[in-house]
């Protein structure tokens, strides 16, 4: 258990939090607009591949990132078009996009690189790691907080941005109103679909960065199925955080802790390896149960006190 006090351990918690945090933010902002987006998983996967391919062929990180973000928004809008305008079942549309993404990325990968497993034959750009001035000189915290990938810092900024947007601006207020009650907001003169599409755009951007962090940040190439359920996890995180980005950050940290623990346990303990891999999921479900039970109790007590 020595690793609990080593800065490396805490550093990797922050690193493994990043993709889930971005996915959680994506889930937060759409759920506040009343959308249940199962397609975050697929969007991340497609963007991870797009970023790698475009940056490999244009030799430009910026173009790759822009293409990834653009595709992220496009995929979210495809979901929005079919779910909101064509009135499709939201879950089914999400499943459709995920199916197309898991198979489609393999197809594109195999067509472009000839390998079904990874894009390591291509030379693609990666996002740089950044040493933060001043902070990096602080003894213990410096080595935890500094030296992360630029997307990690971007994700922290996005957390603040989403919170500010949702709770401090008129736009955010309208988005939340739409999520609370569509009919009321419509009668109050809010353009419901516009609000939903705005939140979907944010969702696309966040998922894109989440995906690109995996293929152009923590790893240097795209491997098939590399999102590995993080998009689905974000939905659970969203349930824990009830759509609040700050709480979303906290719950992603919990996940990051569970995942890093898993890695370290696999290294240092003699337990069955495969069973440990289930640990983050079980941990998340337990946290989810606790949070929800507490919330239900608070609600019950409030009702009781109102009756008295």
């Amino acid at each position, binding site marked *: 258990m020595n690793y609990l006090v080593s800065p490396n351990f805490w550093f990797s918690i922050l690193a493994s939090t990043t993709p889930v945090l971005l996915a959680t933010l994506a889930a937060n902002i759409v759920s506040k607009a009343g959308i*249940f987006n*199962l397609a975050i998983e697929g969007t991340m996967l497609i963007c991870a591949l797009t970023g790698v391919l475009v940056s490999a062929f244009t030799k430009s990180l910026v173009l790759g990132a822009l293409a990834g973000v653009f595709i992220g928004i496009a995929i979210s809008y*495809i979901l929005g078009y*079919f*779910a909101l*305008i*064509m*009135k*499709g*079942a939201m*879950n*089914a*549309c999400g*499943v*459709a*996009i*995920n*199916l*197309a*993404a*898991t*198979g*489609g990325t*393999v*197809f594109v990968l*195999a*067509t472009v690189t000839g390998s*079904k497993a990874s894009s390591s034959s291509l030379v693609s750009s990666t996002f740089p790691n950044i040493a933060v001035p001043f902070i990096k000189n602080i003894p213990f915290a410096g080595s935890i907080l500094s030296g992360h990938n630029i997307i990690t810092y971007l994700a922290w900024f996005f957390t603040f941005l989403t919170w500010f947007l949702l709770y401090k601006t008129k736009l955010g207020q309208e988005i939340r109103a739409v999520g609370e009650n569509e009919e009321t907001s419509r009668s109050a003169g809010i353009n419901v679909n516009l609000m939903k599409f705005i939140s979907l755009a944010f969702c696309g951007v966040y998922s894109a960065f989440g995906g690109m962090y995996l293929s152009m940040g923590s790893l240097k190439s795209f491997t098939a199925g590399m999102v590995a*359920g993080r998009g*689905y*996890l974000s*939905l*659970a995180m969203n*349930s824990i955080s009830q759509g609040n980005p700050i709480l979303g950050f906290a719950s992603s940290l919990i996940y990051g802790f569970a995942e890093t623990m898993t890695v370290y346990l696999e290294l240092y303990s003699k337990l*069955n*390896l*495969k*069973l440990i*891999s*289930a640990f983050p*999921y*079980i941990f*998340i*479900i337990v946290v*989810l*149960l606790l949070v*929800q*039970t507490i919330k*239900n109790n608070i609600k019950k007590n409030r009702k009781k006190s109102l009756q008295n």
Partner: protein
Amino acid sequence: MNEQKKFDIMNYFSAIRILIAIVISLLLVFVIIFFVSDQPVYAIFKMMVGPLQTKRGLFNVLERATPLIFTALALNVSLRSGVFNIGVDGSFYMGAVIASAFALQVNMPNVIHQIVLITAAGIIGGLINTLPIMIGKYTKIDPTVLAIMFNSIFYFVGLAYVSAFLLQKGGSWGSYYFPDSARLGNLIRGTSMHWGFVIMLFTIVFVIVLMEKSSFGYKVRLTGANPNFAKYVGIKTVLVVIGAQFIGGFIGGMGGAIEMVGMYKRFQWQSQVSYVWDGLLVHMLANENPFFIPITAIFIAYLRVGAEIMSRSARLDPEIVAFLQGIVILLVASERFLYTFKKRHEQKLSLQQAKKAEEKAALEGGNSI
């Protein structure tokens, strides 16, 4: 009265709609093939006709359809109760694990062995599928989220169980070989058709009778369509939903067990098999009607096998079928797809009726004077 019985193409609207969706997505896939392949016509030909050319290909389609039919039937029962619970994936995987465990760790005479292991897999599968709904009921957490989490958990638990207790040492990753008393025997020589196919036929009949003819099925459908109304007329909706989840999970677990001891000689599923998404596609293409599930499952399996034959002869990745599946689901799921077409037709029809009624009224009016 005769007029109402007159043939109206719109009675088949949902079927036509699905067919058009399939045609559109096939065309899209053909366009993609034209862009990326050197010999597109040959590739498309292989994909569409390939499975018919050999006996092996034809039976491959049937074998491939079997797990799809099981998952689709399972989803049919559990989704029509109105909850989007996809825990069937966990049931299917754990069903296969339980079947392997019973096959390797329990000694029993031939026929009884298979019956015991399939039943055990079914019961575990049923319990797994009810879990998200039970927890969701008491804590008000979204069951879809819970089901996805549980699918991952059960995948790792199953994998851990196999690695801990059933793993054969040395060689490639996999359990010990199943004894003959546990496997489902061959049905037709020279193919891998097994007795699971017969069990599948019975299951199809069972689900059709259950969902379309029995009072339980009616309750499930009513609860799915309008839970408040169902509660109002005195249906115990909670019990109905949980019962539907259990039966669905039972079929899923059975499917996993049958696939494992029927098709394979040992447990080698090292990655998540995710038949649930294909099952969902089949269920939706069948327009939620269990009667059409075998046809749509065979169709999807046909495309899969066709794509694999194409990939062998034309060097195109078979995953291209995934595009097709995605587009088909998107189109079929959207209510508004071809909606204006139907609306216009209905308007025309009602105008005609109004006109006729007017004429009739005028005629009767004339008579009375």
